[in-house]
């Protein structure tokens, strides 16, 4: 199964709309987008455009926070985390492409708290494959998938953005 | 004490470089004496040994070993090390005086003789200290030591920095016609060096011992030999540049002989790569050009003798970073196999190789050994040159500090007879 550029665009359009609505409902006017490198950063950028924001989205590389570091080693292509704003007291929208075990999100939140104490964090993901190992759920999600155990979904980008179903290689 | 041997060794290839002999013959040992070498000998009552396919050699003479007793830096005992010698076909060993207490008095010489006698595996030919306590300041009692049995005098690895003291030592030795053995290494130029001052030392950041540390000493010593007329032997030449000095001296007619360690003929500075402290020796392993020049010098006789440079060390001597390890290789177990290895590689002709571990060292030490001479006490060994073995599997020296433990090498000694006694017998 594949998601074409068009499919992804529709998902993103809807997700942006829902996010706008939710922020409105919660009375949040001032907020910052933070994408998790790499897929999450692409999604955050796509949402930024749709929400008509001029401010650059933040980018998190959670390599230094992974709990499986000793098993898999460091990714030598670590991108420096870039948060072009002060985290303290801000409302953050954390964006990732695929939510699986929840470990990446935990690592990302740990890292965010090393930069400061945000007022709130909402989680937005493109796909939720529901293979939860931690009590972490998205506030918004583009599509919920029920995958067979050996499958995973991978987002390709940054341009065009498309996704495909692949054989599971390793836990990540 | 073993009884005197009574043996008829049949149809072995008898190799005796001193006599230029290389023929298949029978060798008869009667009451410990080598009585005859000839075809189809008969000797009722003698134990028959079938030596077909085996070599009958004079007992090997290792010109330079460090003694494990008394005290000193080396591990093991005279018994353990002479047993390793016997198993390696060696019957006579030149022993250095750097024991503890130093062999600068008759009591120590006596002790070494007695311990060797008691063990009964090989004859040790002690070399007395040239200076008191090897300190390079006062003459040792050379005449007394000679009377006690010392065959030569040396300051071993210890420096004789004061040229005047050295000259007096040589004059004194010459006065009684005692041979002096030099171990040429200029202390100031050596410093704390532990590797040849070349490419590998530079890569590994090891303090270097330059070639001139040796040549400066050889040149000075040769001038003093000329001035005093002493008989001189040079231990452990390591550098090609020293050979030119030795050849010059010979041409000038100086009474000079020299030896090299078997390791310097097989290894070069690269052996230290990866901080391999098993190859940490003094003088250091040098450039391969030096190694090749040393081989040529053995072949042409500039270097008379090949020795093991036997230095058995306990395991703790190696448990340190390379510069702090004690230099030295335990060499008795491998002298003959390594020599055969060199011959097998075509790096040395067999006859010269055997001469360099039999007649030549005996001549340098002024001892009637290292030859198959009818009428004298028999010192010989019986070698099977074919089988290969891993030395580490039946190592006998108490020191296992050798880079050769796991290397398959040719030759097994079946029988060793030292001065009429069987000191080693294997199947």
């Amino acid at each position, binding site marked *: 199964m594949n998601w074409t550029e068009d499919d992804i665009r529709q998902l993103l359009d809807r997700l942006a709309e829902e996010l706008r609505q939710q922020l409105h409902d919660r009375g949040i006017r001032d907020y910052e987008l933070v994408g998790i490198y790499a897929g999450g950063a692409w999604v955050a950028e796509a949402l930024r455009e749709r929400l008509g924001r001029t401010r650059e989205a933040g980018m998190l590389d959670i390599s230094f*926070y992974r709990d499986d570091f000793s098993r898999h*080693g460091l990714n*030598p292509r670590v991108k420096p985390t870039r948060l072009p704003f002060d985290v303290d007291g801000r409302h953050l929208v954390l964006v990732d492409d695929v939510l699986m075990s929840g470990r990446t999100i935990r690592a990302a939140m740990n890292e965010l708290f090393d930069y400061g104490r945000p007022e709130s964090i909402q989680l937005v993901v493109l796909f939720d494959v529901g293979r939860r190992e931690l009590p972490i759920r998205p506030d918004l999600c583009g599509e919920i998938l029920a995958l067979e155990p050996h499958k995973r979904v991978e987002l390709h980008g940054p341009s065009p953005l498309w996704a495909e179903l692949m054989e599971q290689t390793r836990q990540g | 004490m073993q009884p005197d041997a009574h043996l008829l060794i049949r149809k072995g290839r008898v190799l005796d470089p001193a006599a230029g002999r290389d023929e298949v013959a029978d060798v008869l040992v009667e009451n410990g004496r080598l009585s005859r070498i000839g075809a189809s000998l008969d000797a009722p009552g003698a134990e028959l040994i079938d030596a077909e396919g085996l070599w009958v050699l004079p007992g090997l003479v290792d010109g330079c070993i460090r003694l494990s007793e008394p005290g000193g830096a080396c591990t093991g005992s005279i018994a353990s090390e002479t047993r390793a010698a016997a198993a390696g076909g060696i019957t006579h060993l030149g022993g250095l005086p750097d024991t503890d207490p130093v062999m600068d008095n008759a009591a120590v010489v006596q002790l070494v003789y007695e311990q060797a006698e008691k063990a009964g595996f090989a004859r040790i030919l002690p070399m007395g200290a040239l200076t008191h306590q090897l300190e390079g300041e006062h003459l040792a009692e050379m005449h007394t030591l000679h009377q006690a049995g010392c065959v030569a005098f040396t300051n071993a690895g210890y420096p004789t920095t004061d040229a005047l003291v050295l000259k007096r030592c040589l004059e004194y030795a010459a006065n009684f016609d005692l041979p002096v053995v030099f171990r040429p290494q200029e202390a100031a130029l050596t410093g704390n060096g532990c590797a040849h001052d070349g490419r590998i030392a530079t890569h590994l950041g090891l303090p270097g011992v330059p070639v001139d540390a040796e040549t400066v000493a050889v040149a000075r010593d040769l001038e003093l030999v000329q001035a005093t007329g002493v008989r001189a032997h040079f231990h452990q030449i390591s550098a090609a540049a020293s050979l030119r000095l030795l050849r010059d001296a010979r041409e000038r007619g100086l009474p000079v002989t020299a030896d090299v360690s078997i390791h310097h003929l097989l290894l070069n500075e690269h052996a230290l790569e990866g901080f391999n402290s098993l190859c940490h020796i003094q003088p250091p392993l040098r450039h391969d050009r030096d190694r090749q020049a040393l081989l040529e010098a053995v072949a042409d006789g500039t270097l008379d003798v090949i020795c093991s440079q036997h230095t058995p060390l306990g395991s703790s001597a190696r448990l340190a*970073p390379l510069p702090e390890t004690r230099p030295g290789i335990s060499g008795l177990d491998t002298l003959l196999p390594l020599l055969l290895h060199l011959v097998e590689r075509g790096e040395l002709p067999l006859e010269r190789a055997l001469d360099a571990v039999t007649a030549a060292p005996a001549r340098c030490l002024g001892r009637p050994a290292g030859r198959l001479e009818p009428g004298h006490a028999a010192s010989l060994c019986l070698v099977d040159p074919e089988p290969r073995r891993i030395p580490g599997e039946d190592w006998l020296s108490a020191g296992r500090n050798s880079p050769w433990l796991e290397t398959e090498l040719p030759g097994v000694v079946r029988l060793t007879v030292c001065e009429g006694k069987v000191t080693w017998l294997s199947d």
Partner: protein
Amino acid sequence: MTTEPPSSEVQLTPGGRLRHFLAIENLPRSLLTEILDTAAGFVSVGDRSVKNVPLLRGKTSVNLFFEPSTRTRTTFELAAKRLSADVLNMDIAHSATSKGESLLDMLRNLEAMASDLFVVRHADSGAAHFIARHVTPNVAIINAGDGRHAHPTQAMLDMYTIRHYKGGFEGLTVAIVGDVLHSRVARSQINALLTLGAEEVRVIAPRTLLPADVEALGARVFTELEPGLRDADVVMALRLQRERMQSALLPSEGEFYRLYGLNEDRLRHAHPQAIVMHPGPMNRGVEIDSGLADGERSVILHQVTFGIAVRMAVMSMCVSGQESGEV
């Protein structure tokens, strides 16, 4: 003959990951680049309000300094702490435990305390190799300087600095000035520069401060300063120890400065954009003039900053290499 495995084999897992960091020699370019790339990720960590990342939480790093060096020890300590590791400083520089079996006994004791990383500084060349050969398999050794042999993390922070200012190594001419003979830093720098593809590495020193067969290291040798500096893109000074005067290698500091000391005027012979580096601590007015050390061309203070990130990179790579199960 029994040989020791090449140092690359000691340092890498069969899969080519770092498990000890003992020397630069024989390591592939890809691994050195990986260290620099990983360090780049850590540089930004130093700019945050919370400067720690949890990568080595629960790990213990032991500083084994058999030779005193507060500076180097401090940077390793800071690097370990920024990785959230526990740090143990063993003050052994003056104790008797630096030799033979007692050294191994001490290692056994530290292993029994479940240490994960030993950072070793020792006056003997080969000490870090020796320790790496004798520790249990799950302890990583990082060489913080052994005798005259190697100081690989210093060299890598220098490489980081060069890449930062020059963009890369292709086409670069690097001149190393001073006491090459006694310098573990110079050996590691030369190895690293050549592995990373620098065009030419020069060493500039009087013959008394050059090792035998120095060309074997792959460097071009100059005994005069100005020709050696000509068009160099990077000029690295080495520290001159005062003992060198006592051991008759040099007549005086003054004459050394007159012949080999770096100053603005002499740097005119180098490339106009040349940067000046020094591994510290500097002897101002001996190997380098104060004005130059504090001037525009000097990147010496940045070297210190980058040093922490490079050490964080090496430490985390070694620990993960040890734990990868490939031994």
